[in-house]
Structures are given as C-alpha cells and as structure tokens.
C-alpha cells in the first residue's frame, strides 16, 4: 500500500478560496498513519472545509493532497469511490438518511456495497449500535433522536464498513459527559485495536488532549501551531495560549472580517 511512509495524508501548499475570500493560503499538513490527529481552530477557519477537501467533496484551486501516496486530484470517479470506501466520515450534524430507520441507516453502506446475508448484516449493525450505546434505538427514525443520539448513530454508520481512515467533524458537541467519555474511549480503542487512522475536528481542547496524538491549530488559512497536546498546552506562543485558554483578545480574531466598527455604525462604509 502506498509508499509506505509514515504519513497517510500529506497536504502541500493548499490554496482554496470561497469567492474572493481565501480560506486556505498555502496550508501544509501531515496526518500520520495509525495516529489520532486533531484539527483545531476558531469557528469559521475552514476545518469542515479541510475535511471536504481531503475527501474531494471540494476541489482546491492549488496545491496537492496525497492520500496513501496518491494525488487525489488525479483520480477518476470510480477510483475516487474506491478510495472513499476506505474512509468513514462523521458529519458535523450527523447527516443520517431521514427516510430510513436507525438500523437501516447503519446497514446502508453494507447493503450498497456487499452481498452479506440479512442475518450477518443484522449482527454487524447491532454490534456497532451497541458500541455507541444505541442498540435499543435501532427501530427509531432519525427524527425521533436527539442531536447527540443522531451523532452517535452516525458514528456507528461511519464505522460499519471497517474503514482505514475515520474522520470526525465535531464528534463531541452535544454529548453528555457519560456518552462523551464512552465515545472518546471508543475513538481511541478503534484507533489502537484496529490500526485506524483518525482525524478529529474539535474545539474541545480538554477532550482533544485526552485522545489525540498530535494536534494542529489552524488560523488564517495556515497551520498556526502543531504538536502533541502537551506541547501545545505549554506552548508560549501568544496565539496558541489564546486559543487553549479561550481569550477573546489576541492574534486570533474573534470577529469575521469586517470594516471598522465605528465606520460601519456611522454608516460610512457604503
């Protein structure tokens, strides 16, 4: 598989903008094989966008993204779909299929991609649902779930094909402390026992510290800091300290780009 290097995903000089607004401006980032990598950053820096670029739901204006040594921009549709079968992705809002029950949602990838018997599918699906504590909810429809439950079902669905790479977009939002602990341990355990490579997007500095091997802090379209959670939490850089300790003032702008407040209030901006 691939070039056998330690990096499963390598991003080089990535540039991407939405309209005139640059989201990434020369981003370089490595995801190491078999590790849990966290991607942190203020809201709106483009963490979700980065995940969509890595999975080629979006196409960058410049730069390369290598997955297992393959430049994903060169793949045709069927190769892309083959590659995607190695990914499991947990969307920020769960993205369950609303016309299918919880059980059928988790069974969906199996039914689409395999010819397993109903009994085997049932066995696999119930195992995965049990792992996220929702075996009892198998018969419910997605509309009957709370936000946190929906995300746990989505997690079960992301795991069901036993992917090599699991991508989590904000997995810890809206979970109570108990489920949070269970999910954090589950993420870690899958990573260690099954040799999965995990990418976690999160704002949750504490949870990330317990689960990640390596974290990247994004800001202004670039990597502002990276390292193990310990390194980041003891870092002296103002920017890192600002994010890790949640201060409004500092180099990371809390505000979306805007004209001067005073000017705008006085109506002079137009």
């Amino acid at each position, binding site marked *: 598989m691939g070039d056998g290097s330690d990096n499963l995903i390598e991003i080089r000089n990535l540039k991407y903008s939405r309209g005139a607004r640059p989201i990434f401006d020369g981003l370089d980032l490595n995801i190491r094989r078999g590790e849990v990598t966290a991607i942190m950053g203020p809201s709106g820096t483009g963490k979700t966008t980065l995940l969509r670029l890595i999975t080629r*739901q979006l196409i960058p204006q410049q730069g390369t993204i290598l997955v297992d040594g393959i430049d994903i921009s060169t793949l045709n549709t069927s190769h892309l*779909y083959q590659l995607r079968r190695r990914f499991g*992705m947990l969307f920020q809002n769960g*993205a369950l*299929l609303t016309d299918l029950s919880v059980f059928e949602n988790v069974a969906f*990838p199996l039914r*689409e*991609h395999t010819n397993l018997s109903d009994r085997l599918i049932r066995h696999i699906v119930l195992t995965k649902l049990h792992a996220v504590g929702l075996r009892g909810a198998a018969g419910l429809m997605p509309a009957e779930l709370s936000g946190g439950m929906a995300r746990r079902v989505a997690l079960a*669905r992301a795991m069901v094909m036993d992917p090599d790479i699991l991508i989590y977009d904000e997995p810890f939002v809206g979970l109570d402390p108990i489920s949070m602990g269970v999910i954090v341990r589950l993420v870690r355990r899958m990573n260690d026992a099954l040799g999965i490579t995990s990418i976690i997007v999160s704002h949750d500095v504490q949870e990330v510290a317990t689960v990640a091997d390596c974290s990247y802090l994004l800001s202004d379209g670039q990597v502002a800091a990276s390292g193990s959670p310990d390194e980041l939490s003891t870092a002296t850089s103002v920017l890192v300290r600002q994010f890790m300790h949640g201060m409004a003032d500092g180099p990371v702008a809390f505000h979306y780009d805007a004209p001067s407040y005073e000017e705008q209030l006085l109506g002079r901006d137009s």
Partner: protein
Amino acid sequence: MHRTAQDIYDSFVEFARTFGAFQLFFLRLLRHSPSMLTSRFGVVVGQVYNAGALSLVIVMVCGLFVGAVLALQAYSNMSRFNAEDWTGVAAALALLKELGPVMTAILFAGRAGTALTSEIGLMKATDQLSAMEMMAVNPVRRVVVPRFLGGVIAMPLLAAVFSAVGLFGAHLVGVELFQVDVGSFWQQIQLMVEPADVREGIYKSIVFGIAASLIAVWEGYNTVPTAEGVGRATTRTVVITAITVLVFDFMITAVLI
C-alpha cells in the same frame, strides 16, 4: 441602453448554461436508469408507490369533477343540435386526449412533484447527499434516479385513473342526471373513440410524466441548501411544470392532428 443589451446578453448566457446543465443532468439520469430498473427494481417500485399514492386521491376527486363538468357542458352544447346522445363522446374525447394527461400532470406537479423537490432539497441541505458521496454511493443514482423513474411510471397510470374516473363522472351527469339513454351513451363512446385517440393521451401522459418528474428532481437536486432555497425550489417546480406541460401539449397536439 448599453446596460440593457449587456443584461440581455448575460441572461441569455445564463439561460444557455442552465439549459445545458439540465440536458446533461437528464442524460445522467438516463445513463443510470437501466441498471436501477434491473438491479434495484424494489427501490423504484417504492417510489412509484410514493408518487402514485400521494397523488391518487386528489387525481380521483379532480377526475370525477372534471368528467362531470365536461358532461354538463357537452350536454348543454349538444342539446342545441338535438344530439344529446353525443354527450358521452364529447366528454370522453376531451378527457382522453386533453384533460386527462394535462390535469393529471399539473396535479402531479403540485402534489408529488413538490414532495420530490423538497425531499431531495432537504436531503441536500442536511448533508445527506454528501454523506452518500462519502459512503461511495452515488446520490444521483441512489436518490434521484429512483424518484425520477417512479414519477415517470406513475404519471401514465394516474392519467389513466383520471380519465376512468372522469368517464364515470360524465356517466353520472349524462345518464343519471340528464337521463341520456345509457346504452347510446356508452355505445357512441365505443364507436367514436378510436385507438389513435387513446394513444394520443398515452403519448402525452408519458411525455408529461418525464417532464414533470425531471423538473421536480432537477429543482430538488439544485436547490440552494437552505430553508428558503427549498421553499423557492418547490414553487418553481409547480410553475415551470405547468408552463412546460401546456407548451408541450400544444406542440404534441399540433404534430398529431
């Protein structure tokens, strides 16, 4: 003056672009249709049931009243020539050739078409289509194609139901209300309505079914993924389908006559 010319040019380019994308989309649907029909027929049947069951009641109620009013008009017109026996024929021809397919298509757009558009649009807005992409499932094939085929298959069936119920409505008015002789009412229909008339209605309902379903899934798939976008898309489905159906109706009739 210069601005207007530029605006007209811009909107023409925009229209050409959209229309081109629309045609490509149609080709994509056609490309995936055979495999969907053979390997996943159950999914398609589910969608036929969805689209058909949604519209069945409204199609039957409207069919009954349209048939009845046609008989009222036909009776009052025919009685001027002392040709009351022809009430049934006049109503039947209008139903089979025109009002069956046209009314059904417009009702279908309002009931099943809007449901398709908002369903697909909401799936898009809630990342369900992206989630399928990520599970290496092509959402066009898995979501759009079965709904399109379901509509295409359901439309002619609904139009047939509309015409049948309409004939029953005409019978109620002609025979039960105005006492036209039941024998001559139906015999005239059998004698005068030709296979070509029925075929005209079938052709139309097939074309309208394709048009209405295609517009509904296109609008859903290209929805701006917000609540407002979904609302606009459903409205457009009804408006565009109604116009398209009436224009096609004129063209098909002109060709067949």
